[in-house]
């Protein structure tokens, strides 16, 4: 009752004050960027249901207002609505700034079309919907949607993207604005990414996207976070997938809460569980995997300011084909000759050695503010922790001790200023600082593959965009990077001397007397890198568009290229880095032609990449050990050229039928002797025909044919090996690529409305429909086993 009186009393006071109803609320509506007046903006007082419209000078005036608190909403076509609270106790004049170029500036609009990172670069986007259909797979699998992107596999669960023939350290993977640091130099190290956590993915071929880094000679994969609508809402998504091959599946679920004020919070997780996968004729023993991922994101996002705090965790436990762990070159010969893996066990869910066990944590905090009449400033800090265990087949007490135990910790800070007051002249400037520490645990009882090191990076870049006419845009950028690597490594004294380091690098020796056959060294290297890009975009008319770009990029050698020194089990080879390796410098030209009308979209992308001091690994001889003989593969530098054409066509044949083609053609050679480069993807063409009928619950079905030619150009690294027990030489064919193959894939999808707000999408697909036996040139296990056989997948997706 007491409470009631208080309320009454409040109303009396309130009305007492509200007697005066002659106040005026007036002001100006201006463009946030350039301060120009906005004409015909609506000014609406919510409580009173009164509105007015600004005049030519952006002025407005609403009179006869009583004392009180009001909500005023300013709207204008093409602008973001702005809501303010006013408390009228007298006449009030206020200037309000609306963002007029929302379509240009917002990261992602609702239609799913986002501005590109580079204007003139070769950038392709993969939509959220496509990503969802790959929910149970890996990043490397999804990226094959882009013409010119293939993958380097170790089996079918370790999938690394290959962009125009380049992979690993030559590619930058950005996730939620953070450059992924996860021992990416290793060809058997898949990116630690849960694709379910990305709202969209774009692939930028070449190094034109200077804001991300100057060393992306191959390209950039940019995973963008979900953009949430500013409404008071709570929504969720669950994707459940099951498949016959691997007899497992995945479960992804996400829940998001958003507020009109701009606050948001999102939590999502993914679990995957597969047993042994199967080739058409046999079980691929020990190829199962378990994976778990968790992501949390919260923040505040309005036009003028915002921040984002996110945490991502992923854990992968991946089995590696048992038959691929071999002891020496004779074992490799036996494997190659046997046509099928030498170890085939019955199907199991157990994952034994060899296997990888990797944890990756990523924490990011970023904030931005838009400054009127100027642009946007952004700051960011991120921390990543990557822990990698690799378990080899070992004996005795070491059975459960990892052979590789690495912990990589990376801190980065980033600050960026974007001046976009004039959208015809956009300038971005940024600086970056990074510290990285790698720790190789000595408890493994196996000599370190990669040494302990501290790495310091500093970068600064400047990019700009000039709109000359509406159809003609020039973009250009410049970047400088400094890298310092300070390593502490034990070398075998015999190896140190054999490589001539005793003469070239005596200053690195710390202690060569106290460690028996080993010595401690402290190699320190500094690298200064310059990268630059310039390009132009020209719209001939509504249908034809041309893009061209010239870029230069420098990449310092990665830890493996410098420090590797040891036996690689699955390849049966000794890999040796070289401290003399210097930076690679790539010069890349790209040209793109795009034709688009209502039925047809054609994109033709051509490139030529010349790389000075390209680092390659190649056999240089054989070394005899007590395990037998091993070929020695050493990193060396050469000049190389790569060129190719990627084609992507979609065509609507009729209302119901559409056709698409993605083809890519690439060649790579050393320039001085025209020797082909190793691991260049073969020519491939993917053709698909799709049938849609929206009336049948959004029914669609597609049949896809994937034809991969045999790679006929490869470096001949074959060698003769003496088999003492048989008293004869045998040829070890490690070079010849496998035969061409053709796969048929089929899929169908339907939507069912479960309630007002929830939709169930059912997706059935069959990969390798004909259960074809095949091996791929870029699968490192191709010596040991066939690739996957038929796989039937069912995916259920519920949005609620």
């Amino acid at each position, binding site marked *: 009752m007491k409470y009631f009186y208080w309320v009454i009393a409040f109303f009396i006071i309130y009305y007492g004050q509200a007697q005066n109803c002659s106040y005026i609320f007036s002001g100006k509506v201006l463009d946030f960027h350039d301060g120009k007046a906005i004409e015909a903006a609506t000014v609406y007082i919510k409580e009173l249901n009164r509105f007015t419209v600004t005049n030519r000078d952006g002025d407005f005036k609403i009179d006869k207002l009583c004392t009180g608190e009001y909500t005023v909403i300013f709207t204008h076509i093409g602008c973001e609505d702005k809501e303010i609270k006013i408390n009228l106790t007298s006449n009030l004049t206020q200037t309000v700034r609306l963002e007029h170029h929302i379509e240009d500036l917002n990261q992602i609009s609702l239609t799913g079309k986002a501005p590109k990172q580079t204007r003139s670069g070769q950038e392709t986007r993969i939509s959220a919907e496509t990503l969802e259909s790959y929910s149970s797979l890996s990043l490397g699998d999804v990226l094959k949607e882009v013409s010119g992107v293939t993958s380097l596999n170790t089996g079918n669960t370790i999938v690394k993207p290959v962009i125009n023939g380049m992979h690993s350290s030559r590619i930058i993977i950005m996730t939620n604005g953070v450059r992924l640091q996860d021992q990416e130099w290793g060809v058997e190290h898949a990116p630690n990414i849960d694709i379910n956590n990305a709202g969209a993915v774009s692939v930028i071929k070449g190094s034109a996207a200077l804001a991300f880094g100057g060393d992306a000679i191959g390209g950039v994969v940019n995973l963008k976070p979900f953009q949430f609508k500013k409404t008071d809402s709570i929504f969720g998504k669950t994707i459940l997938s099951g498949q016959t091959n691997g007899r497992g599946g995945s479960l992804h679920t996400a829940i998001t809460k958003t507020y009109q004020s701009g606050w948001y919070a999102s939590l999502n997780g993914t679990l995957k569980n597969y047993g042994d996968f199967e080739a058409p004729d046999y079980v691929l023993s020990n190829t199962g995997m378990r994976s778990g991922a968790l992501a949390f994101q919260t923040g505040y996002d309005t036009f003028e300011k915002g921040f984002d705090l996110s945490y991502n965790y992923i854990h992968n436990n991946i089995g590696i084909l048992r038959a691929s762990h071999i002891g020496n070159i004779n*074992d490799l010969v036996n494997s190659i000759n046997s046509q099928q893996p030498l170890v085939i066990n019955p199907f199991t869910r157990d994952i034994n050695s060899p296997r990888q066990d990797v944890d990756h944590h990523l924490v990011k905090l970023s904030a931005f503010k838009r400054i009127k009449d100027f642009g946007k400033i952004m700051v960011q800090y991120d921390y990543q922790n990557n822990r990698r265990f690799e378990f080899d087949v070992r004996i005795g007490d070491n059975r459960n001790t990892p052979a590789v135990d690495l912990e990589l910790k990376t801190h980065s800070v980033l600050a960026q200023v974007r001046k976009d007051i004039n959208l015809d002249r956009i300038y971005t400037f940024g600086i970056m600082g990074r510290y990285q520490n790698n720790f190789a645990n000595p408890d493994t009882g196996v000599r370190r593959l990669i040494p302990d090191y501290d790495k310091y990076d500093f970068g600064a870049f400047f990019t700009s965009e000039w709109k000359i006419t509406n159809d003609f845009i020039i973009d250009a950028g410049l970047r400088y990077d400094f890298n310092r690597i300070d390593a502490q490594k034990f070398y075998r004294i015999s190896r140190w001397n054999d490589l001539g380091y005793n003469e070239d690098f005596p200053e690195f020796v710390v202690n060569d007397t106290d460690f028996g056959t080993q010595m401690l060294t402290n190699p320190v290297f500094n690298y200064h890198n310059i990268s630059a890009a310039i390009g132009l975009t020209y719209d001939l008319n509504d249908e034809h568009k041309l893009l061209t770009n010239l870029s230069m990029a420098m990449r310092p050698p990665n830890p493996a290229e410098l420090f590797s020194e040891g036996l690689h089990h699955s390849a049966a080879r000794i890999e040796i880095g070289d401290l003399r390796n210097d930076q690679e410098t790539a010069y890349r030209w790209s040209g793109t032609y795009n034709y688009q009308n209502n039925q047809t979209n054609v994109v033709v992308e051509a490139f030529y990449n010349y790389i000075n001091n390209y680092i390659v690994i190649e056999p240089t001889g054989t070394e005899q050990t007590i395990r037998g003989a091993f070929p020695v593969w050493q990193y060396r530098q050469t000049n190389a050229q790569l060129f190719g054409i990627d084609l992507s066509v979609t065509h609507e044949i009729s209302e119901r039928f559409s056709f698409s083609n993605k083809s890519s053609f690439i060649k790579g050679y050393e320039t001085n002797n025209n020797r082909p480069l190793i691991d260049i993807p073969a020519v491939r063409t993917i053709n698909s025909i799709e049938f849609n009928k929206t009336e049948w619950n959004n029914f669609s079905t597609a049949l896809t044919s994937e034809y991969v030619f045999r790679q006929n150009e490869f470096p001949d690294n074959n060698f003769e090996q003496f088999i003492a027990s*048989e008293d004869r030489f045998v040829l070890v064919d490690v070079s010849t690529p496998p035969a061409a193959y053709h796969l048929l894939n089929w899929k169908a999808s339907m939507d069912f409305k479960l309630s007002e707000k929830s939709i169930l999408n059912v997706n059935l697909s069959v990969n390798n429909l004909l259960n074809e036996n095949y091996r791929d040139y870029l699968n490192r296990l191709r010596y040991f086993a066939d690739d996957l056989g038929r796989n039937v997948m069912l995916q259920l997706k519920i949005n609620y």
Partner: protein
Amino acid sequence: MKAIKFLSMLAIAALTFNSCSNDDDAPDPVNEEEVITTVIVSLTPQGSGTAVTLTSRDLDGDGPNAPIVTVSGPLSVGTVYNGSIQFLNELENPAEDITEEVAEEDDEHQVFYSVTGGIGSITYTDSDGNGNPLGLAFTLSTSASATTGVMTVILRHEPNKNAAGVSDGDITNAGGETDIEVSFNVAVN
């Protein structure tokens, strides 16, 4: 201004995190485990005669130096030798005897012997828990006439001991992975 404050806070935070790094000191060397540096095959004649020792020693492991292979002397014609093999890690002091680990996991290991040039024939004289040969002990019956040839010793981890010929010492179908492979040039006088 706020941004600058924020940035400096981040920088401080980063420095604080960095100062927690745990390995400013020199790293510890890795003591290689389960490494076999040395293989010793001892051949003792049944009855009288001179024992023969075949040794392969590679102290730098996967390093560039080749193993040092020595044969103490020629074998005698028409003689039966009792053979045994020993695997050592001589990087440890005293040397670690890996033979014991092989014997403990006898069902997962097998030593294969092969000869060329008709030096003689080899018979296993030991077996694992399942009654399959292990190969740490054997006999070598040398040829009746003088000859030279190569004796190759291969230690396989996880061979398929049930595959055809494997229990007779034929490595062809054994599979598994090679832990040791050493060849000795042997003369029979």
